[in-house]
């Protein structure tokens, strides 16, 4: 019996299945462990380092949402990382918002900033969009340096934590970062399972075909650009409250873009799992090889090129081969009548 003669009642459509349950269980266990860990395992230094990992997960996940699904390769998200970092300090120190509220508000401010920016940048396509975003990031940086009250070239320090003891401060930032990272990943998952997500998946595979089938390509792209910029703002705010200092050169550094690209490309572009895996690998390598400095970045660049050319679906793509999803977005179709030929056909 050939597959083409199967009637719909012969087909079993599965979304998720045991790999998702198992993967979801493992991930939940890891999150529970991370939530409990500061009490008995990690030193304060480790806890501060882990905030960086959570920020990287947010950066990778949201950059992937924009580039992997929306097809918008931005190399200028440091505009919003910087805006988020400066924003949280102003919101906490000047406006007087509590730190967690200030971090979330900084993310929202960045999302709002991305709306007018998108109308300018969406006039460019492909690689030109990419460099255009970088120009905008440079403008953000230069303007921040010139604005009165932003500390010029040397930057700002966070004072809202003054008088708070060190353990409380570190714990606040740690749990805030953990909760935000989990929420960003879950929100991405919910978005990708929605009607908009289906449209984005179609855009990922072929933007022209998606448009011809009635997907609102431009509007979906604007949505993910704004969402990803809000995510970059959140990450920047977390980096700022974790490090307690911001300066234009560090917060608006194109280095962040390099990190995001490595994380997403090595982990797996256009999947939800890929950026998380990529962030963990990147973080581990950074902790292990940091002392090698430039050679470490050279190796990372070479690995990224190799992955793009040889394994374009990244490490997660190599592991899952498109069949398993921890975050089930796609569907698998099995011919029910002939279980001995249980080959699956992928339908995203």
């Amino acid at each position, binding site marked *: 019996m050939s597959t083409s003669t199967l009637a719909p009642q012969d087909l079993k459509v599965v979304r998720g299945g045991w790999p998702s349950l198992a993967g979801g269980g493992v991930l939940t266990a890891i999150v529970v462990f991370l939530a409990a860990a500061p009490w008995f395992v990690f030193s304060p230094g480790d806890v501060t380092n882990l905030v960086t990992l959570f920020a990287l997960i947010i950066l990778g996940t949201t950059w992937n949402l924009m*580039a992997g699904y929306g*097809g918008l*390769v931005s*190399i200028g998200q440091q505009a919003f990382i910087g805006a988020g970092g400066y924003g949280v300090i102003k919101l906490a120190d000047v406006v007087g918002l509590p730190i967690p509220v200030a971090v979330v508000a900084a993310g929202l401010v960045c999302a709002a900033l991305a709306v007018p920016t998108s109308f*300018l*940048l969406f*006039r*460019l396509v*492909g*690689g*030109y969009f*990419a*460099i*255009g975003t*970088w*120009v*905008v990031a*440079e*403008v953000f940086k*230069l*303007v921040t*340096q*010139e604005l009165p009250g932003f500390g010029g070239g040397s930057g700002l320090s966070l004072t809202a934590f003054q008088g708070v003891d060190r353990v409380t401060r570190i714990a606040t930032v740690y749990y805030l970062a953990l909760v935000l990272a989990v929420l960003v990943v879950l929100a991405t998952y919910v978005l990708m399972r929605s009607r908009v997500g289906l449209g984005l998946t179609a855009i990922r595979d072929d933007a022209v075909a998606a448009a011809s089938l009635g997907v609102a390509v431009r509007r979906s792209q604007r949505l993910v650009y704004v969402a990803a910029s809000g995510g970059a703002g959140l990450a920047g705010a977390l980096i700022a409250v974790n490090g307690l200092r911001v300066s234009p050169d560090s917060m608006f550094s*194109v280095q962040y873009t*390099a990190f995001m*690209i490595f994380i997403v*490309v090595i982990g797996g*572009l256009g999947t939800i799992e890929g950026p998380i895996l990529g962030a963990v690998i990147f973080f581990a390598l950074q902790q292990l090889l940091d002392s090698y400095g*430039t*050679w470490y*970045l*050279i190796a*990372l*660049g*070479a690995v*990224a*090129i190799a992955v*793009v*050319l040889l394994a*374009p679906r990244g490490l997660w793509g190599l592991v899952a081969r498109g069949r398993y999803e921890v975050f089930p977005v796609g569907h698998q179709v099995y011919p029910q009548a002939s279980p001995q030929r249980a080959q699956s056909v992928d339908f995203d």
Partner: protein
Amino acid sequence: MDWINAVLQGLLLGGQYALLACGLSLIFGVMRIVNLAHGILAVAAAYLALWLAQQTGMPSFLTLVVVIPVLATVGYAIQRGLFNAALRHGELSPLLVSFGLAVIGANLLQEIFTADSRKISIGDLSTASVELGQLRLGVFSLITLVVAVAVIVGLQLYLSHTRIGRAMRATKDDPEAATLMGIDERHMYALATAIAIGTVALAGVFLGMSTQFSPTYGDLVLIFAFEAVIIGGLGSLWGTLLGGLVLGVAQTVGAQIDPAYGVLAGHLVFLVVLLFRPQGLLPKAVVA
């Protein structure tokens, strides 16, 4: 008089930007690749020239005889070995590969030459100037502008009047039809990149002769070159020349208002062009 001077100096600075930008314009025009390693290749050329001049004691300008062929070969190899393969995976891949190359290049240069700022010595030429009434124009800047115009005219003539140039444009218009006519698409692309990176090498050495550079300078080079290309109009070499001049004038006039605003003024002019004339000032005026 200060303002006239600022505009004139800007035009001269613009010659440098146009020279830096025409390689980016050519690679995009032929292959639709945005080469993010563009800036770092220019800086690498400057370092190579500096190293040659120091090691062999040859005059700075003579190093071009070595630097241009070396970089052109590197360009050919990058296209043949990496970009052609990346092009098969869609349009994201070349962008990501070139970004990887830029990161590798910048860190490699930092490892070899340290992060210190350098400059290629050109002796008295760096301070020589001609007087025009109350205005003083740098001789070296004038040479750069002339070279930029010459390179753009040369590229334009090469693309329209030689066999290989025509084959390149045919490949750009329709790779499949060109292949049917016996043109080796991969070789054509690699030749185009070789020529483009050759011009980048020339531009990089001129850059190194006029300003202090360091491994991170590639970022600025890429941004300025890109702005010149967009202001002028995609796919037009004459547009790139005009774009470079406009960017140069914007920067010097901005710096005349306040020294801190020079680079920012250039970015703002770029954004204004994007807003009101996204196709650029001279879009596709001449085929490239």
